[in-house]
């Protein structure tokens, strides 16, 4: 085998960059690179350096370009990095773009069977004998392409100084200890390392050095967390219809619930999951279940959310507790189904016809997905209304470092449910929609209650306090106004915003959800340039008084979001009709997670204007 001569460019002599760089691995969809990428990610993480991994993938199963972006950041930055320091180019189709995208001085690893001309002088080139090395491992024919990806893992390990045992560890974890695949993959890594040791003259300007910054953290994605939170929230019933990027949330429930939710005595399942025929049915089932006293959940994304609109209006009006997870992707319409966005804020908040309005929880970190998973179920039953949890593809499907999931601090709250013995105690007629406590939340019974007074008739049409059919103007108005009061009364019960104040800040930033990482990073950079900003991360709608105070307290507040029309900005504007300060909408959508660079840039432009 000819010794490859890495044609090193100018960049080769630059001083080492340690634990702060980004890797872009360009592959072909369906070629099995996911194992390789996760192995890399996990190994670096196990070495104690904060990492995050983002999969930029097509709406397709096999054959189209995919990028996996690993950000290594001792500063803990987890947002999408605009700049790429290391590229692994495995896809001939995007080779030229990938090369162009690499920052000067960067490291360019590429499969040596790709016959594209290379016209950059300012990067370090490293051709990889992918096919040869893969063949050497003598894998079964159908696995050859898959394990070929381990070649770049090995070479990167060599170049960046990633420890072999952590790689082994990561493979062990990935294959759940199955030695066959672990050995096969690891042998390719080892061979690649050996090859690199023997053949590579290249010195990487980027290095990993062990740290202890990941102690006390876990590595997870939001959908798994949301599914687990739902399980720990005592969910009884899930109905769902597959849709990217929501699918992996119910699938996490399918994975974990069987182990976690068997009655220890009877060995029976304390829940049921049903894959419905579509979203009209999945939300319908969940509403039926919520009505019948089950803690019920569904998860969907834009198109499915649209289909749930009519039923959402019914649930609001009939006061049925349900939880709906909305994992946003790029719309309108089918849009870019595998790309992230925050474009369904408005729709979620107002989902349904008539004067419908919903409580929306907005997790911004993976462990919040866990927390809101159980909390949403409590709130739904407490408030007797649908609770929406608004996440997105970036938070839901990508791997984030996060603090461990915290066991719920409060016991399960079933709200105001009356059973036989409760009804026994009630002298008067019980009325489903009577506001006895003055909190606009009535008492409810559920089917299965065998008390002769228990039954009532639920309907989407007008009713009086006793759930009798009514078209009387005053019944309609009173009921609808009570619903409004109930909605208003939710404000103090919802997750409070997270506020990060900076000494010397005058203006503020408001953001929510997955953009948190980018905003924090941008804040640091802005502060470094003298622009100090207080930062409020919204965690629920409707907003509470802290949010209003934050806005009032700042002469100017930037509302950052990943959509076109500045939807959250609109919602906030409406909360403060007499708003004296300037609420500035900074929004942007192109399918990629917002970058700190973009935020910094647009805020700076505003600050200067």
């Amino acid at each position, binding site marked *: 085998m000819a010794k490859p001569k890495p044609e090193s460019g100018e960049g080769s002599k630059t001083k080492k960059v340690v634990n702060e760089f980004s890797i872009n691995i360009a592959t072909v969809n369906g070629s099995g690179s996911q194992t390789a990428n996760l192995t890399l990610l996990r190994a670096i993480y196990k070495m104690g350096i904060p990492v995050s991994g983002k999969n930029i993938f097509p709406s397709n199963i096999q054959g189209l370009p995919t990028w996996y972006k690993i950000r290594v950041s001792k500063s803990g930055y987890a947002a999408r990095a605009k700049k790429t320091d290391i590229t692994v180019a495995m896809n001939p189709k995007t080779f030229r773009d990938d090369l162009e995208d690499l920052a000067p001085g960067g490291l360019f690893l590429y499969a040596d069977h790709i016959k594209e001309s290379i016209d950059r002088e300012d990067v370090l080139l490293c051709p990889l004998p992918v096919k040869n090395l893969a063949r050497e491992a003598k894998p079964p024919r159908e696995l050859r392409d898959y394990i070929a990806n381990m070649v770049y893992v090995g070479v990167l390990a060599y170049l960046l100084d990633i420890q072999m045992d952590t790689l082994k560890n990561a493979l062990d974890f990935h294959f759940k200890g199955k030695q066959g695949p672990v050995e096969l993959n690891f042998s390719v890594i080892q061979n690649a390392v050996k090859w690199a040791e023997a053949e590579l003259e290249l010195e990487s300007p980027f290095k990993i050095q062990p740290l202890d910054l990941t102690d006390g953290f876990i590595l997870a994605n939001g959908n798994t967390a949301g599914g687990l939170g739902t399980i720990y929230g005592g969910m009884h019933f899930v109905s769902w219809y597959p849709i990217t990027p929501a699918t992996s949330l119910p699938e996490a429930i399918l994975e974990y619930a069987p182990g976690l939710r068997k009655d220890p005595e009877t060995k029976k399942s304390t829940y049921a999951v049903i894959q419905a025929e579509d979203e009209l049915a999945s939300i319908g089932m969940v509403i039926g279940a919520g009505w019948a006293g089950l803690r019920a959940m569904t998860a969907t994304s834009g198109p499915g959310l649209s289909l749930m609109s009519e039923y959402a209006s019914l649930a609001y009006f009939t006061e049925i507790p349900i939880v709906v997870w909305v994992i946003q992707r790029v719309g309108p319409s089918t849009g870019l189904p595998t790309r992230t966005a925050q474009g369904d804020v408005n729709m979620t908040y107002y989902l349904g016809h008539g004067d419908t309005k919903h409580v929306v929880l907005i997790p911004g970190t993976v462990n919040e997905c866990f927390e809101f998973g159980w909390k949403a179920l409590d709130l739904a039953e407490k408030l007797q209304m649908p609770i929406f949890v608004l996440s997105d593809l970036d938070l839901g499907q990508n791997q984030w470092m996060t603090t461990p999931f915290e066991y719920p601090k409060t016991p399960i709250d079933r709200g105001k449910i009356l059973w036989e013995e409760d009804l026994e105690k009630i002298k008067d007629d019980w009325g489903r929609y009577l506001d006895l406590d003055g909190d606009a939340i009535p008492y409810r019974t*559920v089917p299965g209650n065998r008390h002769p007074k228990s*039954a009532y008739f639920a309907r989407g049409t007008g009713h009086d306090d006793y759930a009798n059919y009514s078209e009387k103007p005053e019944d309609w108005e009173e009921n609808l106004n009570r619903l409004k009061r109930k909605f208003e009364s939710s404000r103090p019960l919802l997750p409070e915003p997270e506020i990060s104040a900076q000494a010397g800040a005058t203006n503020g930033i408001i953001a929510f959800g997955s953009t948190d990482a980018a905003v924090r990073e941008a804040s640091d950079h802005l502060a470094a340039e003298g622009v100090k900003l207080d930062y409020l991360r919204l965690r629920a709608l409707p907003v509470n008084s802290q949010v209003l105070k934050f806005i009032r307290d700042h002469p100017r507040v930037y509302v950052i979001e990943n959509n076109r029309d500045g939807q959250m900005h609109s919602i906030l504007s409406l909360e403060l009709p007499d708003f004296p300060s300037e609420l500035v909408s900074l929004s942007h959508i192109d399918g990629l997670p917002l970058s700190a660079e973009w935020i910094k840039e647009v805020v700076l432009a505003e600050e200067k204007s």
Partner: protein
Amino acid sequence: MAKKTVKQNEIGLTKEDYKGEPTTLCLGCGHNAIVGQIIAACYELNIPPESVVKISGIGCSSKAPTYFMDRSFGFNGLHGRMPSLATGALFGDTSLIGIGVSGDGDTASIGMGQFKHVTRRNLPLLYIVANNGVYGLTKGQFSATAEQGLALKKQGQNRYVPVDIVWEAIAGRASFVARSFSGDPQQLKALIKAGIHHRGIAVIDVISPCVTFNNQDDSFHSYAWGKSHEVALHELSFVPPVRAIKVHYEKGESLEVSLYDGTHIILKKLEHDYEPTDRVKAFQMLEEANDRNELVTGLIYINPKQKSLFDLYDLPETPLNRLSNEKLRPSPESLAEINQVMF
């Protein structure tokens, strides 16, 4: 007035206990007859009203649950989406008896998708379609079951071939499929009883005339047409539990079908020699009846052995909605383990 003079059933309830709000349907509407037979059947079956859950879609037919069994929970949901609501609700407590009422528009037009899927899942539910070939509540448009060529005021003539709900139910693998007629209360009641005891979905397509918008004598869904074209497949009777599941044919006279809970349905043969346990034969019989221009009524298909939706889940004895909070939340230790593997 002496209390004891009012007739009671075996659980000490009077027929009054099975009633609902006064009907607000039109005088003579077929749906009222259905309401009456549901009341009679549940009374005679000694069902505690609290054990019943009523679910419906939207339409005159879907209002019916308001008019029976006030002491049962009820949910008048969305147009065409009763099956999903029923599915979720019945998971709450699988010992409940679900009675769904829908219309031909509600089931065969907008509701076709959910209808087909609930039949294939075999949800234990008595699913009554009050079929009048028309949209009553929106004042007389064609539903999907309206016959081709039917003329209605304002709508002109119906262009399309009708949906046959019985065909669809059988093709869709419903495990109990019957057709009845509002003008034949005895048969309807017997079928309702059988349907309630069937473990699985029991679809009864009841021709139920809309006297206001579709009752021309020559229209397929009218009283007159039904009265003069009805051919009952058998005389149906209903026998409480005696022995285990089986289906067999007793030569000559009658056929006995045993349901899951040991209940028997006895089908006494009339003109037709028909055994309702074969899907293909059911289609054949229906096609022939169609050719003869007959409204065939009775139990058209039954498979008492098909597993119900709940048989396919591994649910505890205690209804899900009564599980204590402790059963619902896994231990802190289990979460610690999960955190271990989140990597």
